């Protein structure tokens, strides 16, 4: 019930009770943790099923998949390494502009653009990760926010490259790997985004269940203790921050390629804040949080903007305030408890 326990509770792995770790060998323990659970299969089955079951909602689904990937990348640093970032949109924007410019200037094959965007965002993430090693939560907030603002300003000022406030228009990506043409219904787009999301998710899942991932959690819980156990915290933070930047960059590239447009708004503070909100709705530290949150957030936003077009921001804010006051851990736990019970009854 105490605050410290709820804090650590957020980092606790989800799902079924994991038996008695002390009695099993570490290797078996890790493998047991990373075993696929039925709910996970169901989740991806639904995601693929939506491709066929909801043919007229592919644009929305595509949006969800990209937001999911972006939030997944934030989860890597927030949920697993405990770094609160207010500027994650910087990497989304870098990826988006990189992919957009590459497409405009000749290289229109989307997968190449994806890799280039990820690499560039990763490079920037690597460099800026050294800025967040020092200081407190507050310093990190300010630094991440400052970095994002610098890129926003850059994109705004370099208007002969980025189109400034008008955005980057006329991005026309070619067929994926020379085979699949983008269509106006977003079917290719959704399939493409979902495939990228799935591959990157598998990679992230592998990473967080590896010893490296466990050491990150140790860092998040108590940096001092992790350090005295011989975990080199700085190196791990640099690594995970870079990885998250690559993911965000790829999400940005997906967004550019599937919407064929980059607007300056992609670097807005609101993007970073949205990602935090999405992640908190879904719950941090178990990878699916970003994806579940993205579904919930997009549907919520879609619904709210249908009811009150101009003022959905208000309800979003109210939702955040209530979420925090009620206690986000408790809310997530409760939903998870309900799900577990539902699954248990069926089994």
């Amino acid at each position, binding site marked *: 019930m105490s605050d410290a326990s709820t804090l650590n509770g957020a980092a606790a792995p989800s799902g079924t009770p994991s038996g008695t770790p002390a009695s099993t060998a570490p290797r078996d323990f890790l493998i047991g943790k990373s075993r696929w659970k039925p709910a996970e299969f169901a989740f991806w089955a639904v995601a693929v099923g939506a491709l066929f079951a909801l043919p007229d909602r592919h644009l929305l689904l595509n949006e969800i998949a990209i937001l999911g990937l972006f939030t997944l990348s934030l989860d890597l640093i927030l949920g697993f390494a405990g770094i*609160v970032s207010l500027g994650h949109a910087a990497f989304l924007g870098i990826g988006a502009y990189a992919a957009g410019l590459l497409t405009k200037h000749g290289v229109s094959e989307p997968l190449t653009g994806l890799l280039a965007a990820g690499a560039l965002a990763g490079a920037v993430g690597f460099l800026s990760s050294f800025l967040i090693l020092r200081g407190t939560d*507050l310093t990190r*907030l300010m630094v991440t926010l400052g970095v994002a603002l610098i890129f926003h300003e850059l994109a705004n000022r370099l208007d002969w490259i980025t189109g400034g406030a008008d955005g980057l228009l006329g991005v026309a990506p070619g067929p994926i790997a020379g085979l699949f043409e983008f269509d106006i219904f977003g079917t290719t787009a959704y399939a493409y985004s979902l495939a990228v999301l799935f591959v990157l998710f598998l990679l992230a899942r592998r990473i967080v269940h590896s010893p490296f991932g466990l050491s990150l959690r140790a860092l998040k819980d108590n940096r001092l203790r992790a350090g005295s156990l011989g975990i080199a915290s700085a190196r791990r933070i640099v690594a995970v921050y870079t990885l998250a930047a690559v993911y965000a960059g790829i999400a940005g590239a997906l967004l550019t390629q599937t919407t064929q447009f980059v607007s300056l708004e992609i670097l807005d503070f609101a993007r970073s804040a949205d990602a935090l909100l999405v992640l908190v709705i879904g719950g941090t530290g178990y990878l699916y949080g970003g994806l579940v949150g993205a579904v919930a957030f997009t549907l919520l936003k879609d619904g709210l903007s249908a009811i009150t077009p101009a003022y959905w921001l208000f309800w979003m804010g109210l939702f955040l305030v209530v979420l925090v006051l009620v206690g986000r851990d408790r809310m997530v736990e409760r939903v998870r408890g309900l799900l577990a019970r539902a699954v248990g009854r069926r089994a």
Partner: protein
Amino acid sequence: MLTILFDGVAYGMLLFILACGLAVTLGLMNFVNLAHGAFAMAGGYVTVVLMQRFGVPFLACLPLAFVATALLGALAERTLYARLYSRSHLDQVLFSIGIVFMSIAAVDFLMGSQQQIVQIPAFLRGRVEILGVGVGVYRLLIIGLCGVLTLLLQWALASTRFGSQLRAAVDDARAARGLGIEVGRIFVVTFAVGSGLAGLGGALSAEIVGLDPTFPLKFMLYFLIVVTVGGTSGLTGPLLAALLLGVTDVAGKYLVPGLGAFIIYFVMIAILMLRPQGLFARGSA
């Protein structure tokens, strides 16, 4: 050149008044309150409404803006903020972002999204020559007012009974409570005064930087810079940081318009890299 310096100082003073409430809640109480700008905006809109709908003169609006925002701040502290002091920084960030979003949408709904104009009275609009430098009367008023308030705050924090109780409550709320200090009451009053000052700053700044519903987001970074760069040792650090920021910003905009905002961001990041606790930190002990 000196005029730019003068404008910069006026701007910095204004920033300090806007941010000094945050210097206490964030700097001293360690509560990450991104919604501080929302209170400043409230003060600005109180002034706009009073002047346009009820014809209250500008100078009379200033104390009213202070009082109204202070009451709003006290209410928000009691009902919402007080529950969050002991939560994690992430919770505080999320909560205050939520407040910012709500305030933006609410003001948009009530007042419209257009820029509001505050007409300052004619006798404040002119310029006077001091030592051969032309300075705006309004900016002179701002510097004077903010200077007096700064001295008053410094005195209240350093030499009054309330100030020492506040410092005790911030340093160790439990021990302070044990000594019979009503920590809750102290925090309400502090929060209310901080919000009130932000409201006053919002009212004063409407003429200089404009007022529209996105105000809390636009200036959030400035407030945060003042506090984080200034450090948490008291009010001197934030004051110097605010002045530095004001002068840099104004000078940057006049002298190298192409670089304007970059300078501030880079300087902020550089300072935070070199001194994560801010320029004027309390000893690390």
